[in-house]
């Protein structure tokens, strides 16, 4: 077995230094402009109160949930083929969520106050209260599950129970996150009881993109550096699964777009016709960031290639980030009750400070990830998976 994690070597140190510098620079920039100008450094306003930092948080939180859901394939549903990525999945889910929360913290008006006012006032009517509860539970379960795996406990009764608990926490957290938007009947573009399903699908798509990208990066973009079971997964089940999830995502977008465009309600159809489809960025992200990856994953000759998979992961990163952005802003572009003061669709472009938060979240993710790859063994898997993988490979070699 010729396993090599290049992040453990000098390349990892270089990446660590680079991402730490970007992290410090973007954090420094954000903090300086926030402390000198307050939230006037944002382009979000009282008419479009939720801007790119919220979209970034949403993207990160859902990518984390997606990774959590992927991890439950082997842990809850017995898809043993996914064991080779499960530990990396859980670690990534944890650090992506932390990075997203860091971005959210800088978006809020009074972040530290949250620590006491939310527990002391227990406003159970608010979906945002539940978001705090469920994502906290999710974080605890992710840590617990990771700790079990780190101790080599893959199949014990408690590790199974923790796995199930974690799966439920992820479903609740991301489903409830969807309802923060989906329950807003005064914002008809969002109002949709099936939004949790759409969030689950897109969460898994963005989780897969992160998983594929970071797994390849850890192994220097070469399958030769990977273990046999991991290679089997990347050549077999994973790209097919990725394709299916992207297909589901496209279907969901299509159904939402068709009902939206068909509707007479200007607060829905104008968002589609005058904002989303009128934007070249949205068009590009839809066709190049979701449809093209789907097509690539459908082609059996292409989908198993390392280069295609990395390309698809990167395209999906961009495609789904834009999807989140346009979703969040799209719910707000029709002005509510403003008369001729706002007599056109509202426009919003993120400011440099808002971008710096997105960069900060991503740099934080990279920094934590490199540290994780260097200090922990994220490629660990149950011994029988290793044995079976090697045996399969030996059989395949003998066959050819």
């Amino acid at each position, binding site marked *: 077995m010729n396993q090599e994690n290049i992040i453990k070597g000098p390349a990892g140190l270089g990446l660590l230094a680079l991402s730490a510098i970007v992290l410090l620079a973007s954090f420094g920039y954000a903090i300086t402009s926030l402390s000198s100008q307050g939230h006037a450094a944002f382009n979000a306003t009282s008419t479009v109160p939720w801007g790119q930092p919220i979209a970034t948080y949403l993207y990160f939180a859902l990518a984390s949930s997606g990774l959590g859901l992927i991890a439950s394939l082997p842990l809850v549903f017995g898809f043993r083929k996914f064991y080779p990525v499960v530990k990396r999945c859980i670690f990534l889910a944890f650090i992506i969520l932390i990075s997203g929360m860091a971005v959210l913290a800088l978006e809020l*008006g009074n*972040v530290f106050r*949250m620590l006491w006012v939310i527990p002391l006032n227990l406003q159970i009517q608010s979906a945002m*209260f539940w978001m705090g509860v469920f994502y906290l539970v999710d974080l605890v379960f992710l840590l617990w599950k990771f700790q079990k795996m780190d101790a080599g406990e893959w199949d014990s009764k408690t590790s199974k129970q923790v796995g199930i608990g974690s799966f439920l926490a992820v479903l609740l957290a991301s489903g409830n996150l969807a309802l923060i938007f989906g329950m807003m009947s005064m914002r008809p573009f969002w109002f949709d009881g099936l939004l949790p399903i759409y969030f689950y699908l897109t969460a898994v798509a963005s989780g897969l993109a992160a998983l594929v990208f970071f797994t390849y990066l850890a192994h220097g973009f070469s399958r030769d550096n990977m273990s046999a079971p991991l290679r089997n997964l990347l050549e077999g089940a994973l790209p097919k699964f990725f394709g299916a999830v992207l297909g589901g995502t496209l279907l969901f977008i299509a159904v939402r777009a068709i009902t939206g465009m068909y509707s007479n309600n200007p607060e829905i159809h104008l968002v589609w016709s005058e904002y989303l489809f009128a934007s070249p960025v949205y068009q590009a992200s839809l066709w190049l960031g979701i449809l093209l990856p789907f097509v690539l994953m459908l082609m059996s000759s292409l989908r198993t290639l390392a280069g295609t998979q990395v390309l698809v992961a990167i395209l999906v990163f961009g495609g789904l980030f834009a999807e989140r952005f346009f979703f969040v802003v799209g719910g707000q572009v029709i002005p509510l009750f403003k*008369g001729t003061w706002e007599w056109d669709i509202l426009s919003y472009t993120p400011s440099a400070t808002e971008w710096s938060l997105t960069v900060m979240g991503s740099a934080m993710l990279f920094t934590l990830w490199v540290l994780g790859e260097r200090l922990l063994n994220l490629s660990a898997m149950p011994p029988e998976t290793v044995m079976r993988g090697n045996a399969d490979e030996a059989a395949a070699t003998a066959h050819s």
Partner: protein
Amino acid sequence: MAKWGMVIDLDKCTGCQACTTACAMENNTLPGESWQDVLFYHQGKYPSAQMKWLPRPCMQCENPSCVHVCPTRATYKDMDAGGIVFVDWNKCIGCKYCMIACPYGVRFYADEKPLLEPDLRDIFPGSNGQLWSPPYQNPEQDWKRGIGIQPAGVVSKCTFCYHKVSKAPAGTPDLDEDIPELKEYVPACVRTCAPKARFFGDLDNPESQVNRLIGDKHGVRLKDHTGNKPQVYYLGAGAGVPAFEPKPRS
């Protein structure tokens, strides 16, 4: 306890914005932070084009969606204060979910790009934790009810001038500026309205003039389909909100 309500007669309103100005003076709000505003709408095309307008305070909804979504109970409906919806500035974390959830767009996060330059916050920098401190400000302050000048990072909104209304003798059916002993208790927008298009009174009192006006003159609540059930009623022709239409593309 009273249930405070407002009635706005659109047949009398001239759209002069005196109420908006009075509110800004009374509550020391920043430009653009219009707790009270007059909205102008145009509807239809020549030869039947119409211009309409309606004054718009916070509706102090009976079923306020802003309260339902607030994760901290910073936004709350105080039944002991006539059913007014307040923001507790000591609790608000500035998540802005309430601004998303209010169908009437009447909540403000003044910690944003200034509407007008120069920025008043730079000219009169804030002291005592306030976002800004003008040379004169209303001495009335109650941060638990969002009265005064807010600190940074919280949401502000119309309070139905609770600092005035709360001092009215208990059981008063209507706060009418024409009754000399009551005029100090009348909300600033109502008191200043020259054509007397605004009325303020107790919706729970069968004797109140606001109830009579709503009953006799077919008072309506705007955007009633949202189910928020405003405590603000509109009378007269034109009490409706045209559907949103984007600017015609040339």
